[in-house]
């Protein structure tokens, strides 16, 4: 949500594209003094070009005006009529989302006429609504439920049969999205999203009024965009639901904590939804400078990597040529012994490590074991090794670099690994957190693995692995990433790690007696 300090901030072109309309008019120079209007008896300032709803949002009072079709990231449509407010000297009720605010307007959001209109809209919406709440994945975070609880009529005067869409009852629009047409309130957010934001134009409304129906532009193709999960985020009802979350959890059980997506160098802001530290989904968190209201599906599904059952979450030690689970004391002692006795150690840090982790390794290892370390970074997205080679893969968010902190590694003066090959050292400390690829390791070098590894990745390195020290994934730790645009983002743990993994500084602290 915007606050008044955001208003004067300059916005780049990319940001305006992300925040399609909410802050479109934010750049206003020389508009002095700011225009004002009276909202429910309180004088609020606004920026010329705002609509009444945006004025209310800027003043932090957006909750006073219910809405279905308005979404700050989408163009304004004004189709649902839920947002009507009373404006003095205007005969009819006005839709707050699409009426431009004017200096000196007097707006009321709670008069009897307004409440009656809202109850009317609610009654009309509920005429044909199936009230599937027990099976609907939206229940608990559904605008229709919330608005009906606040503004809806207690009874319905509709006795006839409800309209149903027999064919489209539940239909998979793609691998990721299921449509239940009976629940749709025809707000057309999804259509505007596909046309204006992701520009895939794969959804459209056919027919009118009673028969209005959401369909795919091409039935065979299905949905094609990389941002399908967003459809289920902003669909105000449970019409579009994300298959990965389908029937998995009821939303009221989930705790929500902010974090940063480490799926690519964009570093989108996310909300981690978990119960008892088991993650059930990622959703986008609004950040006007980075991701706006959206995240891509790959990032959204990347919680599976944190929850991966094959992820190694116990320290392991090579014994008779095979890695076996062990205790931290033994693993740390073995690590200390290896680092002590080796002559030349190469530390290869994936560019998915946080700045703090890189700095810690750079400072602590030579401090503890002397200057036999060479530090290198490894990215592994194709041949990419510096941030200048990184490029956008689409017009919205997705970046080519699939690690989160290449810029941060450069800031720590970490040189990229030559040719992506590790040669000529006795011991290699491989630090990566599940995102950067696994570099090729030449023969005759012992290996210590640290961070987030799954068993396949570990197995790919063969018998050279002496010790495996499990670390924490992004959502489980705190740290700083610098994203592709040079924005520095700090984050704190969103969930508590459920295995035995440890933060890097804790983990290496006891390797030396």
């Amino acid at each position, binding site marked *: 949500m915007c606050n008044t300090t955001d208003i004067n901030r300059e916005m780049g072109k990319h940001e305006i594209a992300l925040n399609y309309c909410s802050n479109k008019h934010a750049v206003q120079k020389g508009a002095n003094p700011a225009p004002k209007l009276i909202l429910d008896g309180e004088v609020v300032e606004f920026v010329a070009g705002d609509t009444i709803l945006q004025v209310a949002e800027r003043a932090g009072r957006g909750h006073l005006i219910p809405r279905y079709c308005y979404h700050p990231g989408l163009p304004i449509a004004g189709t649902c009529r839920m947002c009507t407010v009373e404006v003095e000297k205007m005969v009819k009720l006005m839709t707050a989302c699409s009426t431009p605010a004017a200096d000196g307007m007097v707006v009321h959001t709670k008069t009897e006429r307004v409440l009656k209109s809202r109850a009317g809209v609610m009654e009309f919406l509920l005429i044909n609504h199936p009230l599937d*709440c*027990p*099976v609907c994945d939206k*229940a608990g975070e559904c605008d229709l439920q919330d608005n009906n609880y606040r503004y809806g009529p207690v009874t319905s005067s509709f006795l006839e049969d409800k309209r149903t869409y027999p064919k489209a*009852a*539940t239909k998979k629009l793609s691998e990721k999205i299921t449509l*239940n047409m*009976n629940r749709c309130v025809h707000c057309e957010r999804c259509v505007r999203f596909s046309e204006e934001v992701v520009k895939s134009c794969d959804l459209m409304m056919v027919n009118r009024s009673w028969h209005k129906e959401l369909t795919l532009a091409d039935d065979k193709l299905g949905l094609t965009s990389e941002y399908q999960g967003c459809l289920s985020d902003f669909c105000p009802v449970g019409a579009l639901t994300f298959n990965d979350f*389908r*029937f*998995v959890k*009821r939303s*009221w*059980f989930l705790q929500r904590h902010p974090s940063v997506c480490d799926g690519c160098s964009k570093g989108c802001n996310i909300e981690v939804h978990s119960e008892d530290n088991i993650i059930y989904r990622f959703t986008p968190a609004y950040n006007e400078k980075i991701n706006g209201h959206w995240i891509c599906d790959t990032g959204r599904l990347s919680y599976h990597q944190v929850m991966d059952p094959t992820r190694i979450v116990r320290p392991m030690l090579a014994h008779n040529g095979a890695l076996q689970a062990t205790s931290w004391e033994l693993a740390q002692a073995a690590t200390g012994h290896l680092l002590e006795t080796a002559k030349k150690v190469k530390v290869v840090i994936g560019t998915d490590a946080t700045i703090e982790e890189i700095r810690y390794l750079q400072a602590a290892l030579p401090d503890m074991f002397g200057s036999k370390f060479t530090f290198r970074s490894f990215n592994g997205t194709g041949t990419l090794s510096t941030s200048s080679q990184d490029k956008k893969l689409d017009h919205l968010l997705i970046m080519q670099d699939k690690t989160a902190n290449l810029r941060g590694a450069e800031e720590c003066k970490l040189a990229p690994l030559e040719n992506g090959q590790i040669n000529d050292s006795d011991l290699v400390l491989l630090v990566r957190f599940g995102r950067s690829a696994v570099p090729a390791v030449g023969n005759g070098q012992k290996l210590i693995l640290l961070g987030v590894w799954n068993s396949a990745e570990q197995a790919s390195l063969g018998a050279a692995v002496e010790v495996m020290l499990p670390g924490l994934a992004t959502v489980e730790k705190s740290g700083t990433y610098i994203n592709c645009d040079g924005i520095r983002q700090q984050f704190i743990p969103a969930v508590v790690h459920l295995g035995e993994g440890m933060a890097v500084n804790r983990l290496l602290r006891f390797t030396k007696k």
Partner: protein
Amino acid sequence: MATKTVNVSRPYTWQEKFYLFAIVQGLLITLKHFINGFFLRKHNTIMYPEVKREYSNRFRGSHFISVDKNKTENCTACYLCQTVCPAECITIVAGERESSKNPDGVKKEKRPVRFDIDSLRCCFCGFCEEACPKDAIKLSGKYEMAATSRSDTKYDLIYLKREVKGRG
């Protein structure tokens, strides 16, 4: 603070001192029960387990889940009972019902894959029954819930879907 003791004893009346009256009173009560039980056959106890106690229709006993005519459970795995349960003894895992097993079409697309009630934790408050939007979970009149092992006290979906006549 000084404690003040109040003596509440009183002297016995002469009837109380002459305790034969009380003994006769007691003997009369015994005689009444003897006549009721032995000659008139009116019992206050029953010969359990041959004879079962009749409880009120509103008695809250072991849970069951009602089924429709296809023997499909009415439960749609909405988790409302799990949410409301004060003892936190219900564990549900939801899943999708195969369309072939779902003659009612979209109405029953969601189903409980697992539905466990830990009857040792349950306090038989009946909130789950109250919360259920589908009238699926109910408390039957069954009050014999003793079990010989702990695992038997965990009711699973198969047990919960048992046939219950009336309220059991």
